């Protein structure tokens, strides 16, 4: 670039005066090999169309599957089974293995992910040969395929071992109902350890559904209390007499009923 004496500027700025500027014309398209295309506006228009199609698909997803929202955070609920967002599942699953958890947490939480992500960050310096084709640099390609397979496997394992039904139950937004904790029915529920699984406010938890708004008749509830249900609720939980059973089932049946 021309420097020093004789330079002309626009006023006192550092911008060169138009008459002294070198023409900044782009190279003629014929100087490029193959069938090149102008970015503006030809190629951008095509990109725009790809973007529009993508956006329509994206909006369909948004409409079909509203973003989930569980009930408000309750730090006292110790029975909750946590689950991170899906893109952290591989790490979450890794930390469940014996040599990656407990006294070895450093291995699972730092060393293995550190090596993987460190390798990714420094890939250009680890794989510094001139070859670009994946088949001509088997170590880099193999390491990446291995990491990919491991990530997919760990994510899949995490999904397969998670109890999705319990996850839905434990996070459900339960309509707030004022529960009369002085009621006889509530006391009976407490004495018969119903609350241990179904919660202090009968809101349900990871192991048991909510008892509010069940829509069941008292007789049906009495039957479940005595005989259990679906394998999860064992039979014989209720240990009182018939009169208490009647009060209990009427109490629960009345919760959240309209």
């Amino acid at each position, binding site marked *: 670039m021309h420097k020093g004496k004789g330079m002309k500027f626009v006023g006192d700025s550092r911008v060169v005066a138009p008459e002294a500027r070198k023409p900044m014309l782009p190279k003629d398209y014929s100087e490029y090999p193959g069938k090149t295309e102008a970015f503006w506006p030809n190629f951008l228009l095509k990109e725009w169309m790809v973007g529009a199609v993508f956006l329509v698909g994206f909006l369909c997803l948004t409409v079909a599957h*509203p973003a989930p929202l569980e009930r408000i955070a309750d730090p006292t609920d110790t029975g909750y089974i946590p689950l991170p967002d899906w893109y952290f599942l591989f790490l979450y699953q890794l930390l469940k293995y014996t040599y990656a958890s407990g006294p070895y947490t450093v291995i699972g939480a730092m060393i293995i992910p550190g090596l993987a992500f460190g390798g990714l960050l420094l890939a250009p310096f680890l794989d510094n040969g001139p070859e670009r084709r994946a088949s001509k640099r088997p170590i880099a390609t193999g390491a990446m395929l291995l990491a990919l397979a491991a990530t997919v496997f760990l994510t899949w394992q995490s999904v397969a071992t998670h109890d999705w039904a319990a996850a839905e139950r434990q996070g459900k937004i339960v309509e707030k109902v004022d529960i009369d904790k002085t009621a006889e029915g509530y006391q009976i529920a407490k004495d018969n350890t119903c609350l241990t699984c179904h919660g202090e406010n009968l809101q349900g938890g990871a192991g048991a559904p909510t008892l509010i708004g069940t829509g069941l008749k008292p007789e049906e509830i009495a039957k479940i209390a005595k005989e259990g249900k679906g394998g999860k609720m064992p039979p014989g939980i209720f240990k009182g007499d018939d009169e208490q059973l009647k009060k209990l089932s009427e109490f629960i049946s009345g919760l959240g009923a309209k």
Partner: protein
Amino acid sequence: MLNKIYDWVDERLDITPMWRDIADHEVPEHVNPAHHFSAFVYCFGGLTFFVTVIQILSGMFLTMYYVPDIKNAWESVFYLQNQVAFGQIVRGMHHWGASLVLVMMFLHTLRVFFQGAYKKPRELNWIVGVLIFFVMLGLGFTGYLLPWDMKALFATKVGLQIAEATPFIGSYVKILLSGHETIVGAQTLTRFFAIHVFFLPGVLFGLMAAHFVMIRRQGISGPL
């Protein structure tokens, strides 16, 4: 008229080189899906940027309703989700966009990796790209807490435990993020909000600018 305005600005600021870098340049044949359909793999980077723009816009609209404190955060999200017109759509876009941006970025990373496009002279741009990847994961992690529902709280507790496992500085990292040695509460929510909305996007914009400047400077990598 438009030309006159352009000339008027150009005389003072010499914007022609800028315009040339942004718009007036060649798209080589090997990246153009119109010529080789397999070149659609070159779309992933652009789509990542597209979803990022969606994230920024939908996020700005979400902050019009969202309240970052433990009493109102969940209530405000619930209100947005169920009462506000199109609130469900805006929140849905931000929620699913977070996943999509990671999917697209992952595909873009794989494209660049398997084509060996990160080799000399593009090492620096690869490093910046991987840093963008980390920032996006950080945005995903901090954003997950903000609705303040059950899964948000407990996933964050797990995440903080993992951060705590860092040798030597683990407990400091945890306190820096959560604001307290043991409690994950009001402080944690405001900190995550600040990180999600100010710190990480600031870093992200800087890195993205560097990423794009380097692409324009070096051009796209040649065909294999």
